[in-house]
């Protein structure tokens, strides 16, 4: 055990804190999941990039600082503590990038990563389909080989694509072997959304923002270099990404410790309501955020030491998603009748309800924990 920061880590944190204090917009930006908000968030992303804070853990040639995971955690802590804007580039930098680093060719990495870091290419995720949500392996979008043109023709429909209406590229799975079923015969493709045959329709989330999109592909041609990680390898490659989506990179602890601190402020401002159970719920939410931070430090240590345990990312996802809902429910309780008014806490609550659903529903996660961690016999997937 050693919970002290090295002088280097400390310096890194100080630098980040200083820059954020200078640069974080005084007034919060409108939601990045609306068209005008998205544009403003892009300006912010480019400011981050120019100061090399956009992708701190990436190698310098791609716009990063080669930061260690500890430095990354420190940056994230400072980022959320400073109340900095949401990362509208997260599907690219947190979900696709790890997969590119693991499975991409040098050419793909050199071509795609710098533009992603600079928020020039904006990536959305094409996993779910109308008939394939929790049951991802049921997807039916297909890729047909076009030998003559030296590439593939993609046809099908993707849905629940976050910010799909505002992005420039999509990564997703397509069935490249028509004979295949379930996990076999899938290929991971990288698709520009301005290609012929692509139609994108945005639609609104629970909070009313146009945060989702349906992406229709009708005989869309992509060249061979749009394949990531080998034809028919799609499932293996995708699991790496969903692994990171379900793991810690998407949900850094700073997010919850910062939210818990805001909850404490709210509680201090509403002492008249702090009777009965509310007092305990506020404290418990703060404790749970701290517990999440500690679990994550342990998980990062294990990952770094190559001693990561099976199912750790499922335990992680179950905890943060339930914590996020409880934390916001508690805040709304503190707001009393004002809870129904549109505001950061009510929006945060609606957003939190997606946590137990997306990135592998919590029902699926509990099944994974039960069977892969506890070793129980295989049952329903629900």
């Amino acid at each position: 055990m050693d919970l002290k920061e090295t002088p280097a880590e400390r310096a890194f944190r100080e630098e980040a804190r200083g820059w954020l204090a200078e640069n974080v917009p005084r007034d919060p930006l409108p939601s990045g999941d609306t068209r005008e908000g998205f544009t403003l968030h892009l300006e912010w992303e480019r400011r981050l990039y120019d100061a090399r804070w956009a992708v701190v853990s990436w190698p310098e040639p791609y716009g990063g600082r080669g930061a260690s995971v500890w430095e990354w955690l420190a940056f994230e802590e400072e980022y959320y503590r400073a109340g900095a804007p949401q990362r509208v580039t997260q599907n690219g930098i947190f979900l696709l990038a790890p997969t590119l680093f693991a499975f991409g060719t040098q050419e793909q990495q050199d071509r795609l990563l710098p533009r992603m870091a600079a928020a020039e290419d904006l990536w959305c995720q094409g996993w779910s389909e109308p008939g394939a949500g929790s049951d991802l392996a049921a997807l039916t979008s297909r890729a047909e080989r076009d030998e003559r043109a030296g590439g593939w023709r993609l046809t099908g429909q993707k849905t629940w694509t976050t910010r799909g209406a505002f992005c420039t590229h999509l990564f997703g799975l397509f069935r490249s072997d028509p004979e295949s079923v379930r996990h076999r015969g899938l290929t991971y493709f990288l698709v520009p959304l301005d290609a012929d045959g692509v139609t994108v329709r945005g639609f609104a989330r629970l909070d009313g923002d146009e945060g989702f999109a349906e992406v229709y592909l009708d005989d869309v041609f992509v060249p061979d270099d749009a394949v990531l990680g080998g034809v028919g390898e799609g499932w293996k490659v995708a699991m790496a990404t969903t692994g990171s989506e379900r793991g810690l990179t998407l949900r850094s602890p700073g997010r919850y410790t910062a939210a818990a601190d805001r909850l404490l402020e709210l509680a201090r401002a509403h002492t008249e309501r702090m009777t009965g159970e509310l007092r305990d719920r506020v404290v418990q939410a703060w404790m749970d955020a701290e517990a999440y931070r500690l679990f994550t430090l342990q998980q990062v240590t294990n990952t770094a030491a190559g001693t990561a345990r099976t199912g750790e990312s499922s335990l992680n996802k179950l905890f943060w998603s339930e914590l996020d809902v409880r934390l916001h429910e508690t805040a709304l309780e503190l707001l009393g009748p004002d809870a129904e008014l549109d505001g950061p806490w009510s929006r945060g609550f609606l957003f939190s309800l997606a946590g137990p659903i997306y990135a592998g529903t919590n029902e699926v996660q509990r099944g994974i924990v039960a069977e892969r961690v506890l070793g129980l016999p295989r049952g329903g997937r629900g």
Partner: protein
Amino acid sequence: MHFALSGAALELRGGLRDLLAGACPPSTVRAAWPGGDDGAVQSLWRALGDFGLPAVLVPETDGGLGLDDVVTVAALEEAGRAGVPGPLVETSAVAAPLLAAAGALPKGVLDGAVRIAVQRREVVPYAQRADAFLQLDESGARLLARADADVTAVDTVDGARAAGRVAGVGAPVDVDPSQVRKAIHRGALGTAAFLVGLSHRMLAMTVEYVKSRTQFGVPVGSFQAVQHPLADALVGVEFASPAVLRAAQSMVDDEPDTALHVALAKTLASDAAERTARTCIQAHGAMGYTVEYDLHLFAKRAWALAADWGSASEHRADVARTLLEAR
């Protein structure tokens, strides 16, 4: 001893259910959201006026139906099932009987042409489209005409709540404190009944969805992980509804413990509705997370009403004082 609705009440409830099945589709609930067509909402209210809902608690001598609180909660549960937009509990259960008793019932209330919102703090639910405001506090009541009110719209999570900050002082209404207390009890109790109806609607929608949605080759509704939380949600709703009936009967019998029974009803109904909303959204998966699908119309109303007229924890705190200190 007979703990059930009378045949007459059941008949009235059935009639209202049939009426609302046609007159209050989700599109009408959406019409109450900002930018929606208020005409659709107004004609729904007219239909409810013709049915007699705003008149249910008004004495026949004042042109009302002269029915009681038990019938009223049965009707408001149906209204909740349909998610009727606008200040229906406030108009039918709170304002109409109070104003009639004071001989101050405005024209148009009984036929559904006038929607009366209730102001208990600066922010008033339904204010954007209300035609009048009943200003209630422990000391008394005032009636503020829309024309004399200064209303600033406020965005609400449930657009149909169309709230506003209301400024202006209405004309005094001649009622005694006991009538005001009764009106406040009716607001809480009517809202509890509405919440029970909303909960049943959310469960019904969810059951239909999980029966048809298949994953891993079977309907998701066959998974225990979906079935058991829905069963627990139903338990909460089924145990809230007798408490609502009991409180209504206490109002009728003017029992000394009425306040306690109303608090019990609102607490159980609020907790059951919040749990049901959460469970139904989860059971829908991503489908529960879009506003194109109708579930959110009912879930957001449930959240708003659970916190209105006293939240569960506020009522528990009141009851705690009664049970733990008074005695």
